[in-house]
């Protein structure tokens, strides 16, 4: 079925229903005799990398996709980009089945994989882009327009003539982003686009991503370990853990529900034998500086401060709000969210 530009805008950009991916991992025997055993015995374990997830993503959304290592993030992205065939369920990107209609699908998406480059290793960046222009059949006008826009925002000029293998990580990332968006894809997958970059470089990339999303209404799924990327860019966030979607909703609500941890850092005036107080637990103790953790819906900061000052002599204190990173970490570590099995 030939897709038209209008069709692409009407439907949800991405539709996923009960998506599953199982891997058979064969027990691997070591050593010489093991190699022979490998041929004969076929003992295996089934790993459920993605175990039935549903979501819809509307055109123009910028969604964060989080999860601890091995949760199923990259497996999902691989299925969405067409690299991996699902074990079950349905998956549509712009109305196409990615792995089935590979060439048409791939022509209308953009991908950046932080760990690898999409460009040709030995070619100068501009040569790679020219080659991509030909491969994606990009009109000259569009190509020039995009190229000058990217040159300006991402400051490509200094390294356009340098082969990709000689680029720094930050430069390579910028080149990869340009390459991914050159053909104006309506849907883009970004897998760890800021990994290994310094703060300034990260900010530049984030600004670019936001610009693309706002100006071109590009649908973007952003997978990252850096939760501050998500905090900065995404309103909606999905969290996957052990193959299940444990959260799909607004970031604010997540923060509200689980971000009720607070820290109270106290500098005591003198040494005491026992620093404990009610409703708070000590998370760190360095000489005279004690860090307490408490839940703000159990006890308020001012209540704690009162209790402290009635028992001890204090020199200084400060209250710290949790960062979204800490919240997410808590969710992973303490298993605060259960997969929603009703959907």
């Amino acid at each position, binding site marked *: 079925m030939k897709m038209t530009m209008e069709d692409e805008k009407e439907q949800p950009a991405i539709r996923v229903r009960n998506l599953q991916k199982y*891997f058979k991992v064969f027990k691997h025997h070591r050593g010489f005799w093991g190699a022979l055993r490998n041929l004969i015995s076929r003992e295996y374990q089934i790993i459920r990398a993605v175990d039935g997830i549903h979501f819809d993503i509307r055109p123009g959304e910028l969604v964060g996709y989080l999860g601890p290592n091995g949760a199923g993030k990259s*497996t999902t992205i*691989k299925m969405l*980009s*067409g*690299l*991996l*065939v699902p074990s079950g369920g349905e998956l549509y990107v712009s109305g196409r089945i990615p*792995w089935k209609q*590979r*060439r*048409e699908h*791939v*022509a209308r998406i953009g*991908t950046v*994989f932080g*760990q*690898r*480059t*999409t460009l*040709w290793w*030995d*070619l100068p960046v501009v*040569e790679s882009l020219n*080659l991509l222009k*030909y*491969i*994606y059949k990009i009109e000259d006008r569009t190509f020039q327009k995009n190229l000058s826009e990217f040159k300006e925002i991402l400051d490509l000029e200094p390294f356009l003539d340098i082969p990709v293998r000689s680029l720094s990580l930050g430069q390579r990332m910028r080149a990869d982003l340009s390459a991914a968006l050159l053909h104006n894809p309506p849907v883009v997958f970004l897998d760890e686009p800021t990994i290994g970059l310094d703060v300034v470089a990260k900010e530049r990339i984030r600004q670019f991503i936001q610009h693309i999303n706002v100006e071109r209404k590009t649908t973007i799924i952003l997978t990252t370990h850096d939760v501050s990327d998500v905090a900065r860019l995404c309103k909606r966030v999905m969290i996957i853990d052990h193959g299940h979607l444990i959260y799909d909703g607004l970031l604010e609500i997540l923060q509200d529900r689980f971000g009720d941890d607070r820290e109270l850092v106290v500098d005591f005036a003198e040494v005491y034998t026992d620093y404990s107080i009610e409703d708070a637990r000590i998370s760190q103790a360095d000489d005279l500086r004690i860090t307490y953790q408490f839940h703000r819906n159990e006890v308020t900061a001012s209540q704690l401060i009162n209790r402290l000052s009635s028992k001890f002599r204090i020199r200084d204190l400060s209250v710290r709000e949790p960062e979204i990173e800490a919240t997410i970490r808590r969710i992973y570590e303490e298993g605060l969210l259960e997969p929603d099995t009703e959907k």
Partner: protein
Amino acid sequence: MLSALTLYRRLIKIQIQSQLEYRASFLFDLAASIFYFSFWFLSIALIFQKFDNLGGWTLPEVAFLYGMVEMSFGTMDLIFSGFDPQSFGQQVRLGTFDQILLRPVNISLQIFGSQFTLRRLGRIIQGIVIFGMALTWLDIDWSLVKVIYLPIIFLSLVCFFGGLFIIGSTLTFWTIQPIEVVNIFTYGGSEMISYPMHIYQRWMRQFFTYIIPAIFLNYYPALYFLNKTDPLNLPPIAAFLSPVVGIGTLFLAFQFWKIGIRHYQSTGT
């Protein structure tokens, strides 16, 4: 189709340009390559001074076989560089094969266009020289059929070894490391058919007649060209089966390749 060919030409041009960039290095490699392969044949020629024939075949007759294999293997190595199991296996291992799946271009085309090792020209040139010399030394009874059939033999050999390369590369989808046994068939096989095959032990000959019919690629056509009697007494059609084996192998190899890609897509790395 046209755009596919143009893209292939573009990719190859890039390969060639980057190799020619280091002109001195390239020329040296080329000269070294010619020298080195010629040296090998030279030593065979010298050996023939002490023994005057190989299983009843004279030096020019052996050169006919040898030169043909060198020309075609070298050509195959050049065109199918991307499918060399060593380098392809590395692509799979490093995960750069994913990049190929993410481009809206035919996968095989990209692999063909990914490498074009010009250095291989050395082997091709050496092969042409040897084969040319063989043709001038030998007193071949030329006919129209023979003239037309000669390039067909060449192409069949290219297809056959290309097919083996593809099979070797496809195996790396399962094994990750390229398996050395494939070398036996490619490099071993090419060396083997460079000599008249009736000299080999019965079980080897039978294997390469009925299981991997390499004997029809080069040896039987040579019997036809050189007007030699067939010591194994196969029907005369045997001389013309070269394209069947060559194209058949390439065809089967591509089917296996498709299976390999499907496997890769369902298991990832």
